[in-house]
């Protein structure tokens, strides 16, 4: 069972009533699996801060609640999470956060464990699928016993690995709604924030006593000449490599069990700590005055692996008669297979139209600040469209700031590029700010009607909820109009002429312009395959203009023109029939099978 599936099962067994969150790799599948349990109300909230607020309200109402997100999402949700961490909970509240270690699908690599310390709350870290399930229930016990939200932290190593999982029955746990006259949740009015802060420190002391006793933290005695303190996936790697030595396996990684660590350290000769990313455990252990080896033996970035650990512990392995297998290098001749925008993707068409506009706008250089979504792939070659992209909804405000900072704005055209999902997540206040503070910028809002990057999740603009309820979708053009920019264009993403013209007019306009380009994702919520296009080889002059779309469906045919230029073809298995390329071809060599020639 996938780690993320096991977490969903754990939530079911723990009697969770409400599950909320926002999609993000590697956490996305958790709520998608929760959806299968009818006993749990679940939703994609519009962003992680909102999800956290929903979860807090749900806890006040007495429900056992999980709130799920990826590491970057926790940065967004941290504002409301901080006070609730100090106030405490009513129904158990568990934050499930997955760190994308290795940044497989994130603009950043981040170790969120540091938040546990900041929030003064307990943190649990499973190391495989069975623990991923079991630890959810334990998290709720701890949350309710210690009156604290619990931080349940996973990494891709756990979330995206499968292991055998034994199930238990669901327990039903629900509290009465909170006493509205209680001072507990009223900072300043009921309990002064400094008192709450003190309470949180007192709670940590009780939690530390618990950490020393709970079997979440366990010693597995082996040869006492070597002791390893570890948690999560690194535990699994080390146990595989060198099961002969002694382990202190931590499941509750904050607050640390000082007494347990001290007694373990006293019994072993050489003490090691292995963890991924920041030296979170190591610094605390060293602060206890216990000498330990760790950081100097491992990289500070990326996931640990059998390769890395076996190399660094080669001498130790030799002591136990183990030789490290040869680690062959990749074979020669290999080329990369980069993730790419799909054939017929509306972003490919819009990007092409922006480049088309740039050619005609010789006096101004277009600078695009991007955002988070499939179009982030446009930050890389061959597109090289986005000069910067860093956080959800941030491109709009960054473009605004950039436009205001220019000493000579005449040579630059400042664009922001965002998708519908990200606009609804955090782009709306940013656009409002640009309008309010009189920006001179153009927002390209590419509406493909789904959250495509994470696999086509529903959002407010789709009108479908995670639960499967449908209602009229929010209308993005109306939101944009309400936010107040004067210069608005609504275009078809696949209409080269109109989109390119809109980009030029928007750039000419002094003030905030918004181009809403609408065209559906070809993958989600379901694949769209129209009759495919083809290249009439006799008419192809090898100008390669169609290759400039960077559509995976447009390929070299292998034939050459009389002048030796390579002709192009369209792969019928890859083409989805968007027919954007029909508009590009100067010799009308590309025909849509429906018979159209430049007929859009």
């Amino acid at each position: 069972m996938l780690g993320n599936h096991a977490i969903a099962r754990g939530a079911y067994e723990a009697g969770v009533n409400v599950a909320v969150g926002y999609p993000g790799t590697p956490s996305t599948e958790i709520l998608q699996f929760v959806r299968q349990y009818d006993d749990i109300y679940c939703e994609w909230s519009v962003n992680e801060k909102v999800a956290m607020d929903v979860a807090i309200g749900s806890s006040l109402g007495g429900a056992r609640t999980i709130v799920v997100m990826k590491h970057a999402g926790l940065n967004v949700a941290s504002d409301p999470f901080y006070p609730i961490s100090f106030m405490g909970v009513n129904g158990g509240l568990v934050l499930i956060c997955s760190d994308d270690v290795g940044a497989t699908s994130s603009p950043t690599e981040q170790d969120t464990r540091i938040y546990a310390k900041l929030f003064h709350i307990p943190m649990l870290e499973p190391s495989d699928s069975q623990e991923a399930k079991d630890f959810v229930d334990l998290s709720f016990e701890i949350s309710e016993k210690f009156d604290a939200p619990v931080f349940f932290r996973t990494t891709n190593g756990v979330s995206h690995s499968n292991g055998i999982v034994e199930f238990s029955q669901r327990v039903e746990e629900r509290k009465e709604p909170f006493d509205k006259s209680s001072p507990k949740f009223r900072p300043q009015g009921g309990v002064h924030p400094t008192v709450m802060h003190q309470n949180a420190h007192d709670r940590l002391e009780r939690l530390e006593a618990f950490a020393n006793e709970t079997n979440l933290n366990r010693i597995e005695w082996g040869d006492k000449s070597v002791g390893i303190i570890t948690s999560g996936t690194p535990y699994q790697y080390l146990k595989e490599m060198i099961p002969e030595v002694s382990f202190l396996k931590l499941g509750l990684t904050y607050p640390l069990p000082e007494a347990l660590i001290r007694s373990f350290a006293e019994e072993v000769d050489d003490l090691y700590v292995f963890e991924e990313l920041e030296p979170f455990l190591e610094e605390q252990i060293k602060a206890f005055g216990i000498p330990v080896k760790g950081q100097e033996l491992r990289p500070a970035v990326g996931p640990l692996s059998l390769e890395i650990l076996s190399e660094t512990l080669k001498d130790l392995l030799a002591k136990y008669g183990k030789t490290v297998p040869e680690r062959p290098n990749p074979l020669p001749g290999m080329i990369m297979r980069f993730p790419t925008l799909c054939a017929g993707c509306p972003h490919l068409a819009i990007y092409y139209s922006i480049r088309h506009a740039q050619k005609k706008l010789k006096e101004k250089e277009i600078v695009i600040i991007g955002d988070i979504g499939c179009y982030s792939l446009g930050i890389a070659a061959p597109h090289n469209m986005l000069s910067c992209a860093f956080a959800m909804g941030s491109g709009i405000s960054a473009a605004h700031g950039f436009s205001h900072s220019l000493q000579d704005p005449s040579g630059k055209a400042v664009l922001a590029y965002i998708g519908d999902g990200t606009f609804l997540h955090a782009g709306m206040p940013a656009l409002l700010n640009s309008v309010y503070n009189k920006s001179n910028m153009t927002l390209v809002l590419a509406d493909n009607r789904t959250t495509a990057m994470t696999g086509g999740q529903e959002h407010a603009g789709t009108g479908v909820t995670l639960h499967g309820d449908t209602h009229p979708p929010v209308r993005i053009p109306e939101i944009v109009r309400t936010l107040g920019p004067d210069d608005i264009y609504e275009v078809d993403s696949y209409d080269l002429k109109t989109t390119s013209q809109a980009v030029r007019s928007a750039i000419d306009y002094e003030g905030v312009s918004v181009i809403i380009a609408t065209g559906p994702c070809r993958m989600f919520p379901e694949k769209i395959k129209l009759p495919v296009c083809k290249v009439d080889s006799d008419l192809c002059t090898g100008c390669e203009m169609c290759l400039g779309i960077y559509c995976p469906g447009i390929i070299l045919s292998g034939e050459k023109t009389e002048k030796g230029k390579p002709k192009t073809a369209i792969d019928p298995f890859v083409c989805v029939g968007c027919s954007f390329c029909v508009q590009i071809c100067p010799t009308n060599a590309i025909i849509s099978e429906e018979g159209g020639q430049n007929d859009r």
Partner: protein
Amino acid sequence: MTDSTKNILVVGVGGQGVILASNALSEVAMTRGFDVKKNEAHGQSQRGGTVPSHIRYGKKVYAPIIARGEADIVLAFEELEGLRFAHFLKPEGKLILNRQRIYPPRVSSGMDTYPENIPEILRQHEIDAIEIDALNIANKLGNPLVVSTVLLGALSNLLEFTTEEWKNVINKLVPQKHRDVNMEAFEAGKAV
């Protein structure tokens, strides 16, 4: 039951059936009573990227990911991906190489060159490869989607599970109306 853990790396391109094949293998091993761990790339692999799926089974399995130089078998759904992951094999490990090519967009548009002589490169580096044209076999059976089952048939020759164990699992994983063709595909792969 053997004490040592078996490491099988299944690799291909998104949409080829890598996940189905690795699920079938995990299920067969689990049904036999082995402990099984599996890890596969999520996220950007859906965008035409490489899909590696690591399966490890044995009496007790800890690590979910296979280290370089430790795979017993690499089952490659595509030539370039076979080349990419061949160095994961143990010296005595075996590569099953499906002779299918899926060109990355950078190749199709002339920015990269697809290596022409992959079986030859593999031979030069003493990789023990079993070549199979699973797409051709699947097409002959009238369903290009059974490539994955053909390759499982080929894989089954190298593992300890019986044909019956495999067929029971495959029957569970494929839609009922495609069962017969999948059974034929398995046998055809096994016969290679």
